[in-house]
């Protein structure tokens, strides 16, 4: 008898809670993926495609869905650490297939070599190259993310990635690397 009552009670309770869960699943359905947005905010937005995804947002989506977090070469270990913090996982080392050299660079067009083919313009993910067919192209250095996607398409190899020069304004107090004059 007690067993039957127990079964009945548990059955009814679960009926009620099942209904509640069903209701909640419809009512509070989360649209979109806020996690992906947060990851996207961490990524450096170079849109370089080195992660194997066409742009930072797609990679963010992929990470939110379980892709490895160590594929953002421009972001480097810093970005990995931040994503790991966000996702609550252990930070892992940069994927070996990705270059880890993430010194900030900016593209530079050697103008005398440029033939005006517009290939780099098509490659640039952030429209940081101006120029038109048969005209020499120029990089808007401020907009350039240093993704180096324009380097490969150039038929005349006139695009170089140049490290951003150090000035007193962006100097990072690296006392160890001051050029000290050795007199003798």
């Amino acid at each position: 008898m007690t067993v039957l009552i127990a079964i009945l009670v548990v059955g009814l309770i679960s009926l009620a809670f099942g209904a509640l869960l069903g209701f909640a699943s419809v009512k509070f359905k989360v649209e979109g993926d806020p996690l992906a947005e947060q990851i996207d905010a961490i990524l450096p937005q170079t849109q370089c495609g080195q992660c194997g995804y066409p742009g930072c947002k797609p990679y963010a989506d992929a990470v939110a869905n379980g892709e490895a977090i160590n594929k953002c070469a421009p972001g480097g270990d810093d970005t990995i650490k931040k994503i790991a913090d966000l996702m609550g996982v252990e930070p892992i080392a940069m994927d070996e297939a990705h270059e880890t050299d993430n010194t900030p660079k900016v593209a530079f067009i050697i103008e005398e070599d440029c033939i005006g083919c517009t290939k780099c313009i098509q490659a640039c993910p952030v429209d940081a190259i101006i120029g038109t067919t048969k005209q020499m192209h120029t990089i808007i250095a401020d907009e350039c993310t240093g993704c180096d996607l324009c380097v490969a398409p150039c038929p005349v190899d006139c695009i170089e990635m140049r490290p951003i020069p150090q000035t007193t304004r962006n100097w990072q107090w690296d006392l160890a690397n001051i050029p000290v004059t050795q007199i003798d």
Partner: protein
Amino acid sequence: MNIPQEYKDLTWQGLWKNNPGLVQLLGLCPLLAVTSTVVNALGLGLATLFVLVCSNATVSVVQKWVPKEVRIPIFVLIIAAFVTCVQLLMNAFAFSLYESLGIFLPLIVTNCAIIGRAEAYASKNPLKQASYDGFIMGVGFLLVLLALGAIREVLGQGTLFDGADLLLGSWAASLRIEVFALDNQFLLAILPPGAFIAMGFLIALKNKIDASIAEKQPKKAEQSIERVRVNFDS
């Protein structure tokens, strides 16, 4: 012997790489509470192992009919049912064991290791693999419990398998090993703080071993990656 790779992987995962005790850190509550002696650890470990196998198998069987929204309550129901059955059966047929493990048994219901496996593995895999996963995870958990129990028992009381007769019958009384005679018990080892400290050392040891294994492994050959163009050629 031709064991499919899948089972090898599962074994490796359960026993070492993804050990529920040392890596997933699931079910710490019973793990730390009952491991004051090897025998206690063995008892709880076996009970957990049994429940884990049963619940994994059941969850795997019913996975098709379980909708996403109510999966957790259903898993909990299944596990709770198994635990209660185990408790009742133990009470009926292994009373002395029930006496010494009784209060820990209900803890298994809330042992996250079990619901964790149900959710992470059993609910997505076929019966055979799920059962095996439950078994091997249970064994992994049991081993950690035993290790912890052994450390604490030796440090705390200087013995091993003390009280084995309660669990295994009177013949087991002869299993008791007096490692060294202590005038005074080292209470810290027996008390829960000792469990935490010992657990910490176990985890550290595992990480150390992993690190040295990783060091020994030759570096993977550098592979180049295909860059994806952010182009929309079409």
